[in-house]
């Protein structure tokens, strides 16, 4: 057996591998730069960049709040000197903006409902299937639209749903005249649901994975058919996931821009489209800023109400309601 020299043996002359020496030097440098007594603050130091990024956004909001208090002088195209609440009055008194806000909220509600309705069985089958082929196929199909992006997806829907598109061709085969499937409210909701489905499925899957299979088996041995088991066991136990997914889908839909712009064809504007128009078409920064702040408030209030009634679901990070 070869003799292994002890670590302290003067005969042992060796150099550590280069990679070890580099790592050791880095560690030493780090120890000097960030000594051990600083370790309680390490977490804070690491989230600083993210906090700065969000802080910048808050700064922007304050600036926007400031500009929302000036009206646009149509003669000079400059914002007025004096502070005024006129922009907010315009928004509140305008029937058009009232319709836009109602439409956005209603569409977001419908989108949440239909998305969860479709996502729950999708996620359930993806989680519960015993076939890895089925699971992988469902995952790939789910992720494909992510690579395409919202605008291209909306454009694809324009082609499919157009008067000479696949959908109308199919209707033509059964003798139905081409109908207008685009540029109306259902088209926008359809596009939103299609866009949100992957988000909802990805948020529901962990919640469903957390339900032990044996719990459902137990329900069935206790006399529940699959529908009863789904209603009394799966849905209540998946509630945190449903709320989390609903909040994400709802806020994304409420603030969406591309779907109403492309599939609504200008006739189905959401709040985001109205804001865009004020900033980039009429160049009325003040009115645009007022609309933007109203959207922030509206979204926060809706989310706040939902959380206070149902709890934050999976967004609560396991904290109690």
């Amino acid at each position, binding site marked *: 057996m070869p003799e292994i020299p002890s670590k302290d043996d003067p005969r042992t002359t060796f150099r550590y591998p280069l990679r070890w020496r580099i790592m050791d030097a880095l560690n030493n440098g780090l120890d000097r730069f960030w000594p051990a007594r600083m370790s309680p603050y390490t977490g804070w130091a690491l989230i600083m960049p993210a906090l700065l990024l969000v802080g910048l956004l808050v700064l922007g909001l304050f600036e926007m709040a400031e500009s929302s208090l000036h009206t646009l002088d149509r003669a000079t195209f400059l914002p007025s000197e004096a502070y005024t609440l006129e922009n907010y009055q315009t928004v509140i008194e305008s029937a058009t903006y009232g319709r836009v806000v109602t439409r956005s909220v209603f569409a977001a509600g419908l989108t949440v409902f239909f998305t969860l309705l479709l996502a729950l069985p999708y996620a359930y089958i993806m989680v519960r299937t015993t076939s890895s082929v089925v699971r992988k196929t469902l995952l790939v199909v789910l992720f494909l639209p992510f690579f395409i992006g919202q605008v291209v997806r909306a454009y694809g829907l324009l082609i499919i749903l157009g008067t000479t598109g696949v959908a109308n061709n199919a209707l033509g085969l059964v003798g139905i005249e081409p109908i207008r499937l685009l540029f109306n409210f259902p088209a926008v909701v359809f596009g939103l649901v299609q866009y949100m489905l992957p988000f909802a499925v990805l948020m529901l899957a962990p919640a469903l994975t957390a339900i032990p299979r*044996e719990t459902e088996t137990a329900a069935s041995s206790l006399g529940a058919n699959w529908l009863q088991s789904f209603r009394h066991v799966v849905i209540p136990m998946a509630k945190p996931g449903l709320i989390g997914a609903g909040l994400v889908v709802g806020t994304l839909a409420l603030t969406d821009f591309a779907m109403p712009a492309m599939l609504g064809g200008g006739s189905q504007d959401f709040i985001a489209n109205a804001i865009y128009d004020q900033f980039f078409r009429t160049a009325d920064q003040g009115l645009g800023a007022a609309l933007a702040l109203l959207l922030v408030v509206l979204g926060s209030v809706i989310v706040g109400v939902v959380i206070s009634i149902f709890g934050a679901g999976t967004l609560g990070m396991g904290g109690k309601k």
Partner: protein
Amino acid sequence: MTNQIAAQNSATQSPREVAVRASHVTMDFGGVLAVNDASFELEKGRFLTILGPSGSGKTTLLRMIAGFQKQTAGEITINGKPVDAAPPHRRSIGMVFQKLALFPHMTAAENVAFPLKMRRFNPRQIAGRVDQFLDLVKLGGYGNRRINELSGGQQQRVAIARALVFEPDLLLLDEPLAALDVKLREEMQLEFRRIQHELGVTTINVTHDQREALVVSDNIIVMDGGRIQQQAEPVELYRAPENPFVAGFLGLSSFVEGTATADGNMQVGDLVVQGEPADDFAAGTKVLAAIRAEQIRLAGTREALGNCDMKLEGRVSDTIFEGERQMYVVEVGALSGATFRVYHHDPDSFGLFHVGDTVALGWNRRDLKIFSPAA
């Protein structure tokens, strides 16, 4: 009181109605026979334990009875009716699961009420029945607790109440005690026995714990490799194992290989070892003998052994202190170095013998079982 009456009933009322009958049940998982041609009968009101190591097919057999899996061949009847076409929720079977599978979003009482609601019991009777069964499992007053507010033992009790509250034809226990610590496990074993006697419900329990099987059951099936090795009452199963697997799985047995003699004994070298043949084998074939650790007597000399059919000398090769007893491993040169594991109860002085000591071993003929090994 009720226990005694029920116990007497089970002893006197025979023959009884058959509650569960499995005939030639086979489960083929794509070429792997998880359960291979299993047939058994279980009388009404009896407590049967299916005992076996992991992978023996015992859980698969239980899941087929519950209806969670469909056997690839054979038939299962419950109370005389074939159940193969019935899904689990249409069978009258209560089951306690290994991980209990209680509903965390419900209280204890809501958990127990669940099967009553699903099975459309009269809503006005549900509350009373839930209370009655919570009392049965000694959880009266705990109905409003959430599941995560109950201890492990209390959760076990909720699971039992939930499985029994709708008075099923059959109670299935899928190793619900496996995860408990020893004290709680032994307490719950006696609870299962008490409740089963009180209600008289036919019960099938699955476990790998031989002690549990012997303690709780009226009847035991030992499974290995998908096959039923033996079905018998606990005492008979322990005393008269039908094959080497059962002899080795229950209790601690030592095995010796040899050749069958014409009169049904076994020859090792020049020595004829007297024993009891457990099955038929021809003279000259290879056989395997088994004897349990507590059936071997141990002493310093042959004389000190007293009356034994068979006496041998050996050398202690290991001693293991087990608390209430000492186990010795003894090597017997006359049996070509075969080792015997011997329990020695020695109230006065623990560790009477030491490694290297020469000791005398003795046993009676009826305690050494001789098997044909390829049975």
